[in-house]
């Protein structure tokens, strides 16, 4: 096989897995799959995933004593927001630190043109058949103009990569505001002209919906469809999280047609949807630039860190998945965050380049 073809096949498989493949790519992917030309490669990707899942698995019980010890391990981090004490100097710790997420994102216009949304933008940035996109004086990206036949079917998307966070909220044509976390994307029509306002989300976003009884607002995600009845809510639909969750902050909304109240969270998919009461401060902390740990498991914290600092997290030892409490400034360098977790937990970290390895203390 040509090396060039091999690379293309890998890219195709990766884009399929990421959920990024276009119609044409999907056709090619399944055609090659049916002709058994990429079986071996897909199988490789599956093996890699299995390996990672097995590594992540909690250790199997060895003796009853061990079980109870694990249950007892809940840890409290007490630290005031933004204040850090760097007392230890670990020779293993690498010198160059990982900076927190960049204030940046990418806007993709209907014609495929890409615009990098960085802090420097100001004023009008694009015009799509009468729909004007600009950065206004309140530092928001706005879509404004008249709905016409020419712009009614145009779709745009705004996306952040791992290690990126959008500096601005996006104000859609109907006035709905959306804040995007790292490694997330939202796809929406530049103008809403139907009976429903439908947008698609991957990753995590906070929505402040401009209520309009005659045009229902709907967010489609991997596992849930969220319908607004006049609302602010937070949706976490990251692919690498065990289950997606939608949290209602104010107003009223339904998730997969089940109505939830402010302070409630809908977790999961389909008929297995669970509704629980949560502390919403923790859920929206990312929007206010904090990591808020509220009885959070280490593995969940590490997933968030990996998206925010764009690092890969590897577990070298089997660890007890302890729970942490505390608040950490999101604009801290990675080493500070790791130090804080290390000083109160039973794990230690080694950061090298874009990889963080977790060891048992």
């Amino acid at each position: 096989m040509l090396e060039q073809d091999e690379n293309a096949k890998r890219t195709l498989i990766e884009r399929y897995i990421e959920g990024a493949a276009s119609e044409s790519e999907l056709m090619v992917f399944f055609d090659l799959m049916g002709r058994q030309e990429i079986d071996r490669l897909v199988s490789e990707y599956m093996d890699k995933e299995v390996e990672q899942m097995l590594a992540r698995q909690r250790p199997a019980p060895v003796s009853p004593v061990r079980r109870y010890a694990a249950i007892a391990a809940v840890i409290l981090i007490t630290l005031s927001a933004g204040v850090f004490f760097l007392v230890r100097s670990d020779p293993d710790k690498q010198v160059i630190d990982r900076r927190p997420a960049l204030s940046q994102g990418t806007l993709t216009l209907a014609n495929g043109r890409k615009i990098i949304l960085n802090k420097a933008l100001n004023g009008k940035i694009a015009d799509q058949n009468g729909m004007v996109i600009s950065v206004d004086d309140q530092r928001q990206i706005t879509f404004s103009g008249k709905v016409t036949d020419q712009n009614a079917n145009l779709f745009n998307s705004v996306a952040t990569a791992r290690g990126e966070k959008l500096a601005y909220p996006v104000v859609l044509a109907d006035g709905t505001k959306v804040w995007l976390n790292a490694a997330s994307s939202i796809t929406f029509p530049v103008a809403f002209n139907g009976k429903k306002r439908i947008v698609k989300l991957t990753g995590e976003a906070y929505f402040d919906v401009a209520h309009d009884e005659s045009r229902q607002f709907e967010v489609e995600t991997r596992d849930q469809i969220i319908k607004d009845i006049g609302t602010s809510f937070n949706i976490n639909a990251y692919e690498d999280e065990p289950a997606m969750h939608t949290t209602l902050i104010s107003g009223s909304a339904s998730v997969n047609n089940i109505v939830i109240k402010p302070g409630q969270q809908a977790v999961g998919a389909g008929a297995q949807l669970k509704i629980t009461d949560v502390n919403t401060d923790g859920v929206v902390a990312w929007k206010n630039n904090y990591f808020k740990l509220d009885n959070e498991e280490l593995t969940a914290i590490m997933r968030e860190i990996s998206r925010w600092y764009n690092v890969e997290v590897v577990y070298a030892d089997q660890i007890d998945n302890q729970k942490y409490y505390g608040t950490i400034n999101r604009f801290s360098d990675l080493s500070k965050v790791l130090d804080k977790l290390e000083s109160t937990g039973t794990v230690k970290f080694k950061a090298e380049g874009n990889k963080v390895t977790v060891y048992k203390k």
Partner: protein
Amino acid sequence: MGRYNLYTDLELFGLMKVDDRGAFAELYGRYHADIVRFLRKFLKSSNLSEDICQNVFLKCWEGRSELPETIAPASWLYTVAKSRALDFLRRVSVEQAAASMILNEYPTGRNLPEENQFTRDYLAFIEKILDTMPERTREVFKLCRQQYLTYEEAAVQLGITHHTVKKHMGYSMRILKRAVDKELGIDLKILLAALMLTLH
């Protein structure tokens, strides 16, 4: 919570061999969610992943007398899940039902990050395969697209017959193929909708 949580995975396999249902329930509880997650990563559909996972556990229980004693049960479960997932992916290009399960839940495509030699090579590769692709594969995809806008709905909207819409759909697929490849990431259904409007 019974005593089962104290057994190792291998011990649970052992108990299942003597028909212990509680052991099976414990194993299911330990791995069910992870296996669904694993399947969903490759199959994209939650329902499908759940079904296949049930199937894996069914095989595990029905074939309990022959479960291996030297392989970690978790590895065994993942191996079965993996082979089922691969089998399913092979069927998609020829079976419309299989295709629609995945395609209906597949997110809207995203553009490639940047244009360079590598992405140009990649697009050329995609184009090359599309050109050689058997008609039946495209047929399956075309049928699946009914999910977005059924022929009937389109016919009513445009005030033309079902048959005419079908003809247009087939035609538009062919002429749009190249355009779509050039603008990789632009959703075909958006282009189709635009084309429908101009036809009108």
